[in-house]
């Protein structure tokens, strides 16, 4: 996944966010070894110190742990990952609801719009599946 980094927010925070999402989405499985700071920094085209800061913060929260000679690893604590997943999901939902409110949608309108959109998505997906003969 490409690193889309915004220059007007601290980079290290954005790095933390991206790695969190990568962990939740399964790109990094629990127990996986992370690439070195240098490699990650080069991949993201950021300053290695910034990358180091982000990883240190992730270590502090426990999402990532370091073994002195072997490098950094994703935590195997699946509960923590699930909790993080819920937390992030909740943040997205809260933001979504706030935005819908700004548009003037009431709660019921929001829910019905959601259901309708999900339904159409399912049917278009089904059509696509039929077309491909699945």
């Amino acid at each position: 996944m490409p690193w889309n980094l915004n220059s007007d927010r601290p980079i290290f925070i954005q790095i933390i966010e991206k790695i969190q999402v990568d962990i939740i989405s399964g790109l990094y499985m629990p127990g996986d070894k992370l690439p070195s700071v240098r490699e990650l920094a080069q991949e993201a085209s950021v300053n290695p110190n910034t990358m180091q800061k982000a990883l240190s913060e992730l270590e502090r929260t426990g999402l990532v742990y370091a073994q002195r000679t072997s490098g950094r690893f994703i935590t195997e604590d699946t509960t923590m990952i699930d909790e993080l997943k819920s937390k992030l999901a909740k943040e997205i939902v809260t933001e979504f609801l706030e935005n819908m409110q700004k548009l003037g949608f009431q709660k019921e309108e929001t829910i019905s719009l959601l259901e309708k959109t999900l339904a159409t998505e399912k049917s278009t997906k089904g059509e696509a599946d039929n077309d491909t003969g699945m």
Partner: protein
Amino acid sequence: MILECKDLTKTYHGFPALSDISLQIDEGHIIGLLGPNGSGKTTLIKLIAGLLSPSSGTISIEGNPVGPASKSLISYLPDHFYLDGHRKVKDIIGFFHDFYRDFEPLRAYDMLGKLNIDPNQKLKTFSKGTKEKVHLILAMSRRAKLYLLDEPIAGVDPAARDYILQTILSNYDENASILISTHLISDIENILDQVVFLHKGRIHTHACVDELRQETHKSIDDLFREVFKC
């Protein structure tokens, strides 16, 4: 401390190009020296490199004053071509290897090879962009303590810019520091961890990049435009 400037001043016939510059740079940082044209960026870099002498103040590089000792610790990339075009690239590599103990020819050949640049050719036969890359490769093939890059990405196409930034990152050494002067900030700000804003020969700001972003909620590019509004 890799670099320390104390009350550095440079005047040309009464015109102060730099005034009271006091700056300290530690190991392991990539620092952007930012400022509008004429703010004194190149002057400061040339002073550190030993091409100019200060009107007053001191410069020390790892405790050494400017001289052969400091020059052996500094890898300097000027903002224009400075190598003899009539020489072959491999001869220039030999020259650098001869004079600089920390020059690593294998690294240079490796980088040239990845770009399909033939070291047996004379430098003048290459296009402008390729010449820029050769100059950069030579500068980055040294294991110096302080790299001074003066406008390394100006006048170069975006793809080459990416290559240059990647090269700078891949040659990063936590025992060394890189000072990059530029006015193309948005391209470069993600690889910086500190910036120095230079305005009319004085230091306006010297701060960590992410801290600035946190405080101002702006990118360094936006901040620059704001600070140096015409």
